[in-house]
């Protein structure tokens, strides 16, 4: 029987849920919903949008139409740096159906967009002017846009456009750029260098040393839905002359509707109230669906042509216009004593970046919190390149950083002749080794122990290349996974209560993570309503608050906002009840939500349903909105998710081919809210980790600065046959300082997998591959 059926059959009345207190303060108690056995929490509820997704009725951004809509196609620069001398658009303009050819010569004046992580309104990938000058800043930059009545006409016209350039020298070679590397002024808002003690001296003095360089290539998100949007400019009713009432309506594929509105308002010099973005279905994001040039160009062209526009990037277009993960070269140096205790931990290196964005791929993130070394030095330098700005991709930093760190740990274990899990156990810290804060919730050793038991880790042979099956060499490897808990400011929620149930509205996003489903469950549990009486609204910039789908923060951010809104709702409901109500005289903290109404805690008879309260007050609905509490918990504790990844790999001794035979992830991510969607999230991350380990690489030509494999045929991602049955398990121990006791789980799955695979490959073949991806040529 599913949890839903259970609730329907009523044989398990939901217990009351009191209002959450100050979970973010040391003296505050945990969210009551984090307690074990809460009805509906953890239930494997099937996705609330499942039927729409399997029948094809879920409408994605590039599938809306407007009356009179035209289709866009882009022309991309073929040089990395220089000037446009001439754009020959005559042939294109004469072609059938062509409505507009837009270049820097006729594009409307646009302000440069604010950049993500540099400006509070920033959603843009870089700060280059957009089609405003003859300058070319990267190979692939849009230099012309065509609008036509059909996509075929637009594409053909775009192909006919000839562009002459005056190319200038460009820094497109990472090897060369590295020699001019610089220390960025910040990494994700924090320092670019972190030191504890004197790591270099401690390393020199250590009895056991590992000092190795690990390299990771560029990656692209490759969400299966290419970026697309449909938009229209309209002027308000009765406003003939226009400008004032002008609004921009956009159906976009976005993981940040509010931030995109704020950035677009700056670009077009209009008010945020004049822009409305909705994005109810997003065909995968992984960090790639923020604001890039295509949205701005589409809106500019629509304005110029005075027609609604659909712009759907081709798969190649996504590679040209939307940044990916930067390549890195990392050094990990470990110094340990005879017992394997780390005395020195150095993790430094260089990542490619541009001078026009602000994301040094933060590969030392995981290293900040994982091991109790006496002396630590972490640093990131950037090599400025003339390329499309790099950006966030699933677990920026941890995904590639954990490959280096966790490979090095394995190398040290090998040198010490110690089990790799035991080595990690010996270096488990009491407190956060770099911030000194206590951990809010850390049960990594428990996750590692239970995972090892389930996986059969004890069967691993300590001697590499000692297990064979025919021409296959078999090996086991493990690695630690970790990703921070965060809760960004800006979240707010609106709860609208009617006699039939509640609507929860929040400007958050669903890109497949299960947000809509999980938050429906959580709201139902919190308000004491069955799930079918909750409608969760999201993906609309008109909704309350501003919640970025990033940093695995949505679960907590939405949870915190709903906690605040629930308190406001209860206060308003109590203000409505009259003298005759059994609830009369109670304060919010004496109240719990239960059985579709409010009741006094510990008193079954003092109870009224929401419908009764509303009816008594003569109201058909009650609507409240509240802001989430500030995320003080982040200053009070070191907050992270943890896990251990176990992998069994087969290496073909004849061909060098690697096949993953088994993969298990054992996670410690607080309370799991929906076992079904959580399983999918973990597995999805781990599969992207297999891609990172074995096949993914954006090939960047160091001579031309051009991405040479901008297609799903040439950029390989794991397919069905590459993926074994993946086991996932979790501690399910709630974090006492987070909403629902939960942590976001969208990114941790990819972390650790690269190293677990590399370590298994080493155990299988005796070959240590420090350069991703682990393709067969490296094993021959």
């Amino acid at each position, binding site marked *: 029987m599913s949890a839903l059926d259970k609730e329907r059959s009523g044989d398990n009345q939901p217990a009351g849920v009191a209002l959450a207190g100050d979970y973010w303060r040391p003296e505050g108690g945990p969210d009551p919903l984090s307690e074990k056995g809460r009805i509906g929490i953890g239930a494997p509820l*099937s*996705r609330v*949008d*499942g*039927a*729409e*997704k*399997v*029948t*094809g*009725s*879920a*409408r*994605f951004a*590039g*599938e809306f*139409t407007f009356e009179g809509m035209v289709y866009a196609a882009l022309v991309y620069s073929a040089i990395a740096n220089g000037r446009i001398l001439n754009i020959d658009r005559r042939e294109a303009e004469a072609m059938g159906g062509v409505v507009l050819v837009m270049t820097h010569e006729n594009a409307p004046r646009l302000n440069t967009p604010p950049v993500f992580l540099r400006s509070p309104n920033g959603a843009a990938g870089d700060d280059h002017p957009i089609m405003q000058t003859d300058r070319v800043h990267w190979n692939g930059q849009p230099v012309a846009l065509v609008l036509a009545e*059909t*996509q*075929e*006409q637009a594409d*053909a016209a775009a192909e006919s456009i000839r562009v002459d350039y005056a190319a200038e020298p460009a820094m497109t070679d990472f090897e060369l750029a590295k020699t001019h590397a610089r220390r960025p002024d910040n990494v994700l808002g924090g320092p670019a260098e972190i030191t504890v003690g004197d790591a270099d001296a401690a390393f020199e003095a250590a009895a056991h040393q590992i000092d190795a360089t690990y390299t990771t290539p560029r990656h692209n*998100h*490759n*969400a*299966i*839905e*290419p970026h697309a949007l449909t938009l229209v400019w309209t002027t308000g009713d009765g406003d003939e002359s226009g400008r004032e009432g002008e609004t921009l309506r956009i159906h976009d594929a976005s993981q940040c509707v509010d931030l995109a509105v704020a950035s677009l308002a700056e670009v077009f010099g209009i008010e945020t109230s004049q822009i409305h973005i909705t994005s109810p*279905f*997003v*065909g*995968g994001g*992984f960090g790639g669906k923020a604001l890039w040039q295509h949205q701005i160009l589409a809106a500019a062209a629509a304005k110029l042509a005075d027609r609604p526009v659909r712009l*759907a990037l*081709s*798969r190649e277009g996504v590679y040209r216009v939307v940044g990916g993960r930067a390549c890195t070269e990392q050094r990990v140096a470990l110094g340990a004593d005879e017992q394997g205790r780390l005395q020195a931990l150095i993790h430094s290196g260089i990542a490619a970046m541009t001078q026009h964005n602000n994301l040094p791929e933060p590969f030392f993130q995981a290293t900040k919190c994982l091991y109790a070394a006496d002396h630590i030095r972490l640093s990131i330098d950037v090599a400025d390149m003339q390329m499309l700005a790099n950006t966030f991709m699933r677990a920026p930093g941890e995904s590639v950083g954990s490959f280096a760190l966790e490979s090095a740990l394995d190398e040290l274990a090998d040198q010490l002749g110690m089990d790799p899990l035991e080595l990690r156990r010996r270096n488990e810290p009491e407190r956060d080794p770099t911030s000194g804060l206590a951990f809010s919730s850390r049960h990594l050793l428990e996750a590692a122990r239970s995972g090892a038991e389930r996986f059969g880790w004890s069967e691993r042979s300590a001697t590499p290349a000692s297990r064979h099956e025919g021409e296959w060499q078999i090996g086991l490897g493990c690695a630690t996974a970790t990703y921070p808990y965060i809760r960004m400011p800006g979240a707010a929620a609106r709860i609208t209560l009617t006699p039939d149930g509640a609507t929860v509205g929040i400007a958050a996003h669903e*890109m*497949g993570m*299960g947000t809509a489903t999980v938050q429906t469950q959580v709201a139902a549990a919190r308000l004491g309503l069955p799930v079918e009486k909750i409608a969760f609204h999201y993906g609309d910039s008109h909704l309350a608050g501003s919640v970025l789908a990033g940093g695995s923060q949505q679960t907590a951010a939405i949870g915190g906002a709903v906690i605040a809104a629930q308190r406001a709702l209860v206060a308003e409901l109590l203000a409505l009840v009259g003298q005759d109500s059994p609830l009369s005289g109670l304060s919010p903290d004496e109240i719990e939500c239960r059985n579709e109404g409010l009741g006094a805690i510990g008193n079954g008879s003092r109870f009224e349903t929401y419908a009764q309260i509303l009816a008594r007050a003569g109201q058909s609905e009650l609507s409240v909105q509240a802001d989430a509490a500030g995320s003080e918990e982040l200053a009070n504790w070191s907050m992270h998710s943890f896990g251990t990844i176990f992998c069994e790999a087969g290496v073909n001794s004849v061909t060098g081919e690697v096949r993953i035979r088994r993969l298990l992830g054992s996670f410690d991510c607080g309370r799991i809210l929906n076992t*079904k*969607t959580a*399983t*999918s*999230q973990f*597995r*999805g*991350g*781990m*599969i*992207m980790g297999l891609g990172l380990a074995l096949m993914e690489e954006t090939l960047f030509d160091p001579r031309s600065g051009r991405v040479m494999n901008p*297609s*799903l*045929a040439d950029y390989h*991602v*794991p*397919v*069905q*046959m590459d*993926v074994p*049955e993946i086991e996932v398990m979790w501690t399910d121990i709630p974090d006492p300082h987070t909403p629902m006791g939960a942590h976001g789980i969208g990114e941790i799955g990819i972390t650790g997998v690269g190293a677990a695979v590399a370590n298994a490959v080493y155990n299988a073949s005796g070959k240590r591959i420090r350069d991703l991806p682990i393709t067969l040529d490296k094993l021959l």
Partner: protein
Amino acid sequence: MQWTINGQVREAEVDFRTSLLDLLREQFQLSGTKKGCNQGACGACTVLVDGERINACLALAVQYQGRTITTVEGLAENGTLHPVQAAFIEHDGFQCGYCTPGQLCSAVGMIGELERDHPSAVTADLAANGIEWNRDELRERMSGNLCRCGAYNGIADAIAAGLAKELGEELGEELDEELGEEIAR
């Protein structure tokens, strides 16, 4: 020009350059069929033509005139989900849902392959009469449908469960049980 799409005769005059995929999405507003690459690499555009699965992005609309095409919108019958559709929901065979229509049509297309004894790269005995239908056959045959969300395990579970049900109805209870055991890992 004329096509039979999801049981209905549809007519349109289209550009000879129009792909079958764009015909469906832009002319007939059947946007359930997805465009993930437009170059035959992802399988998101998979539809059934006379029961066989093809990549609609690699097909020209003109070339398929007069043929019978089934898209994801046509899998359910009279409002009842196809067993594979229902199983996708139950087994969480998707996350974002963008690859899902292609996965579904591809899965349904496999039934025909089974009936026609088409071998795959993992078929062990090409000379044998009939194909031993197992999870590897399923995974190999579904490897043309990419899922970046990584719902592969759920997809395989869903197809196994859905096909077992579908084939059970078509070929009798006996097979249902055998398949159920064999496919459900």
